[in-house]
């Protein structure tokens, strides 16, 4: 069983606390939903968890490994933070192939399967620059799951998606949870959180608390 543990994490940016004394634990096989208004600290929390921001005080642990001390980034993580940029001149499949070539964890079949699961055609030769915003978001989800990561950190995963794609992504997240991944999602869409999350947190002014969505 994998665990992510934040121990009293505070992050200051330009002398302002964007996260304040956040202590929280995430376990595999669960979906954690985090909601809060814009600027409440959801994205900063995700950046800290992914190793992209270093806590000013406190620590982040991935199992027993301390981020920024034992490891620089979580060893197995699929991330969406805002809609990521891709290599616009290349097709969706080529983009995923290039990303997969870094860790060599995803096979060609994994890449094709992840594209199909988000409703994209793996044989589509069009360059990503011709993709709509919704297609880019689907591609972002595909890159986040293709390597079957232990930790999935998706910030607003259903942004810019139509109803059909929203359903696909929700199904994917449930499957990932059942596979045993730790799934963290942040969304301003309370339906996503309500329908998917096993545990719900609310963020406000950089502080986190467990909450129930009705």
């Amino acid at each position, binding site marked *: 069983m994998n665990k992510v543990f934040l121990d009293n994490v505070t992050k200051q940016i330009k002398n302002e606390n964007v996260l304040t004394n956040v202590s929280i634990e995430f376990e595999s096989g669960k979906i954690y939903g985090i909601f809060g208004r814009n600027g409440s600290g959801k994205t900063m929390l995700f950046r800290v968890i992914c190793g992209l*921001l270093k806590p000013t005080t406190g620590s982040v642990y991935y199992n027993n490994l301390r981020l920024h001390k034992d490891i620089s980034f979580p060893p197995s993580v699929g991330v969406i933070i805002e809609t990521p940029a891709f290599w616009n001149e290349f097709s969706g499949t080529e983009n995923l192939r290039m990303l997969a070539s870094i860790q060599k964890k995803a096979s060609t079949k994994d890449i094709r399967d992840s594209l199909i699961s988000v409703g994209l055609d793996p044989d589509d030769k069009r360059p990503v620059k011709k993709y709509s915003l919704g297609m880019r978001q689907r591609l972002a989800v595909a890159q986040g799951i293709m390597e079957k990561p232990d930790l999935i950190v998706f910030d607003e995963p259903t942004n810019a998606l139509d109803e059909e794609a929203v359903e696909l992504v929700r199904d994917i997240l449930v499957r990932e949870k059942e596979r045993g991944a730790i799934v963290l999602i942040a969304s301003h869409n309370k339906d996503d959180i309500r329908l998917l999350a096993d545990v719900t947190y609310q963020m406000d002014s950089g502080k986190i608390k467990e909450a129930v969505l009705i």
Partner: protein
Amino acid sequence: MNIAFFKKPIGKRLFILAVLGGILLALYFKLTNFNKDNRDLSVAILEDLGTLEIETIFHVLPALVFALPFLLFILNTGDFVYSEYETKGVIVLTRLQDKRIWYWRMMFNIFKLSFFYLAILFISFIFTGILLGYSVEFTYLKEVLFLYILSLLTWTAFSVLSNVVCFITRSGLGYVSVITIYFVSLFSSAFIYDVFPTGQKWIIWFPTSQQIISWHDFSLNLGESAFRLGSYTLEFSFVYLFVLNIIIGVWLYIVIHRYESYEEG
């Protein structure tokens, strides 16, 4: 790691700019040197890409023409590393697990872009020169190679510096500071030449001076100007640029290592 991972459309754009740059420069210098027929191509390259008459810098146009290929290069690569970090850092760095690997790849990419851009610029200039009737003797091939290496090292250093400024200022405008340094360096040389002739030895310390081969203590008489610094050797420039690249490269490493991306799009 697959090398295709770092393929960039920027390469295609730079290729076109280098071809056009070479053609334009060859045409420009053919027009401004209409009385010099049957020049050897190697001399043409040394005079046209490695020579700037110090007296004409304040006329601005010669300095601008001289700087044109550099400006096109820096406008396209000056925020390359920074923009890669901000746009794809999340999905790339979390896979690489180590910023150092990414840093070395980016340094290699800048060097590679600089290498091919200059090579294509030179080749385009040579082909246009042949069409314009220059002779293909290449008497000074070694010197052309020196000019190429000096330009390569100078431009790589400026491009890396521009990216350092981008990271520090958190904006894609690093090239503004680098272009400023480039021209301040050029115009300061001209100012010293005009106003403080006794201080001319300081000109060799300006970064832009390193790629102007005609200012070096050199066996060829290049251009119309007699301006040449007696103790200004090519060896000095190679060492200067080598050290400069290391310093700026280490600076970029430190900046990237400390950089935290937190801007929300």
